[in-house]
């Protein structure tokens, strides 16, 4: 088995799907000869040519519009949004067209499109290169929202997304692109099911629920707490929409305590939905208040490094929140 980076997992997924299915193509800014600003599509232009790896103008609205049109025409577009922060011009296309197509045509038309968007902070990207936007889209039925956290999941979930008959947004934790490495078997089809969470660490005292980069920090915090005799169960959600409620409820039913970690602004963030579900469906299993640890409610990720650190949850902050919850 080879150890690869998260971004290499994404690259392999696209390479394999391009090879498997002629209908698959990639469109986005600089995805062609340049291989994408993060090099996620490196080498694909040389291999599949300009007909299938298409450099777009600097216009996210048209990237998604092209994707929707091609998908309706029977193709399988993978649209790359260079940074999730730039997805807003395409919001109308995604929410009003892609998400609703199957429903409003009574199942006759579907949009088998994948949108890849690097998200999240911690890279010194400041206001326009750090945003976490999952809550906007996880609010929209008709979309699937996926956040891989390991190379294996990056590969398996992206491949599954390409094969899904409906639009899938893949938010990729860009800080982990090269930081997160993991073993991925070679010469074997890696497919991870959409809509299934993963218990990445088994514990008894409390459940910590996270996704993306926060999942790694949460595991580190859980390791630290194990030294103190506090046993934390960690769930990597992997898919935010549809949510794997059974895994979340099953774990919290066992531990009685839940901490949800996300780097988006706290208010209206995705973790609020998990908290609401737990309050609603796990009330009599709860032994403590459901807690959220998120970013502060400030308009943007600060550019200054100390302030960026202040903004983002990290293993120390997560461990502190866990300790407090364990002691409740």
């Amino acid at each position, binding site marked *: 088995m080879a150890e690869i980076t998260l971004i290499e997992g994404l690259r392999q997924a696209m390479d394999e799907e391009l090879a498997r299915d002629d209908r698959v193509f990639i469109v986005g800014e600089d995805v062609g000869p340049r291989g994408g600003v993060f090099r996620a599509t490196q080498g694909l232009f040389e291999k599949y040519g300009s007909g299938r790896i298409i450099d777009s103008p600097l216009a996210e609205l048209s990237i998604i519009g092209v994707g929707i049109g091609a998908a309706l025409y029977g193709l399988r577009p993978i649209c790359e949004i260079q940074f999730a922060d730039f997805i807003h011009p395409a919001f109308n296309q995604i929410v009003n067209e892609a998400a609703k197509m199957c429903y409003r045509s009574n199942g006759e038309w579907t949009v088998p499109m994948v949108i890849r968007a690097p998200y999240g902070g911690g890279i010194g990207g400041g206001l326009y290169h750090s945003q976490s936007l999952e809550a906007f889209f996880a609010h929209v039925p008709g979309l699937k929202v996926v956040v891989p956290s390991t190379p294996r999941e990056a590969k398996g979930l992206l491949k599954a997304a390409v094969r899904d008959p409906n639009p899938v947004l893949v938010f990729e934790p860009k800080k982990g692109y090269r930081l997160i490495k993991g073993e991925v078997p070679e010469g074997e089809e890696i497919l991870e099911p959409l809509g299934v969470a993963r*218990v990445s660490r088994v514990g008894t005292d409390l459940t910590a629920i996270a996704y993306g980069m926060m999942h790694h920090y949460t595991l580190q915090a859980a390791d630290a707490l194990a030294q103190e005799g506090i046993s934390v169960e960690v769930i990597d959600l992997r898919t935010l929409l549809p949510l794997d409620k059974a895994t979340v409820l099953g774990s919290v039913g066992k531990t009685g305590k839940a901490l949800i970690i996300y780097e988006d602004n706290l208010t209206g963030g995705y973790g609020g939905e998990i908290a609401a579900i737990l309050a609603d469906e796990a009330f009599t299993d709860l032994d403590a208040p459901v807690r959220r640890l998120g970013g502060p409610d400030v308009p943007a990720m600060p550019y200054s490094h100390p302030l960026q650190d202040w903004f983002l949850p990290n293993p120390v902050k997560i461990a502190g929140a866990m300790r407090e919850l364990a002691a409740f």
Partner: protein
Amino acid sequence: MSTQVIMPQLGESVVEGTVSKWLKAEGQPISEFEPLLEINTDKVDTEIPAPASGILLRVFIAEGQTVQAGTILGVIGEAGEPVPEAPPASTAAHPTSPRPAVAEMPSPAPEPVREPAPAAASARPDLGFISPVVAKIAAEHRIDLSLVKGSGAGGRITKKDVLAYVGSIPAAVPAWEQPASGELFRPSEEVFGGPPKAGPAPGDVIPHNAVRRQIAEHMIRSRRTSPHVTTVMEADLSRVVAHRQAHKEIFARDGVDLTYSAYFVIASVAALKAVPWVNASWTDEGVVLHRQVHVGMAVSLGDEGLIVPVIKNADQLSLLAVAAAIKDLANRARSRKLKPDDVQGGTFTITNHGVSGSLFATPIINQPQAAILGVGKMQKRVVVIESPGDDAFAIRPMAYLTLTFDHRMLDGAVADRFLSVVVERLETWS
């Protein structure tokens, strides 16, 4: 409106501190954020600012005492405001204790100092906050929570505390022998009146009915006849659950309840076909392999016992027909309208003891059959999904299946083969 001065947690791993000096005396005025006292932790002194403006009405923790984070140190309020004389109960009881144990932490101070407490599910005031899960466990096990020692924040009873208490109740001493002050159980003399009599009193005799006599006779005969051996497997019922979910409304349109039992009948039929030695009976001349598959389904009649109506030629029936047959037989069993023929001729029996919550059981063979399938309660369990290099946990609806078989004619390997087919049929249902 008064404000409590609470011992803060001064570091991530610092859970206690010593009051080294009060900078204000009782009765002195103080402004918010003005230094109020000094706390020493690990040889470091930290000034604690006042959480509110007003008069330092009461100091509960004297200089030199070491207390846990979260302890109420004192109260700030307005002049003339009523303040509890005593600090929170347990601290008062051990004023010299340098380091109160967590379990002796004070419960929230009485009004008016106390902030509105979170709504407790079934709390008595002196128990502190009772979380929903603690209330649920206490109700389920009829625990008097005033007997449970709390180890949570402020002495709160945690889920672990109440579970440890449940586990500590000795099995040999039934709960009703422990008189307690809780509302949940009262001494039996209060319930039944009069002092308990010495020695067991003679009980009432309920005459046997015909069903009970027949069950007794049959059970003893079966136990004497067949050497019973039981083998256990478990089945992942995800696909069955999904299939039932997708089809039960369609079946309902035909007036049929699509029960899980129907799936177990179909799976058993597949296994009886694959392993015909199980669809058999012992005779002294040899084992009779039955040509027909007649599956009996145990139906509980409540206190009156149970009866096993038979689905004839189950191998020729669809899922819909099996479900319809089960409904018909069960209805007629419960309304006592079965005909003698309905309960005869079975070649194999299924007992779905899971419906009453049993996980697995070792049922007794219905003579002269070779085996009986026991179906345990379907429960969501965490299972390991194996995948090379990346095993994962998943939550799946699982059930234990047992096959109790007659070891005269069946050996373990054959029985296991049969049970494997049942499991495989259920797990691959489509």
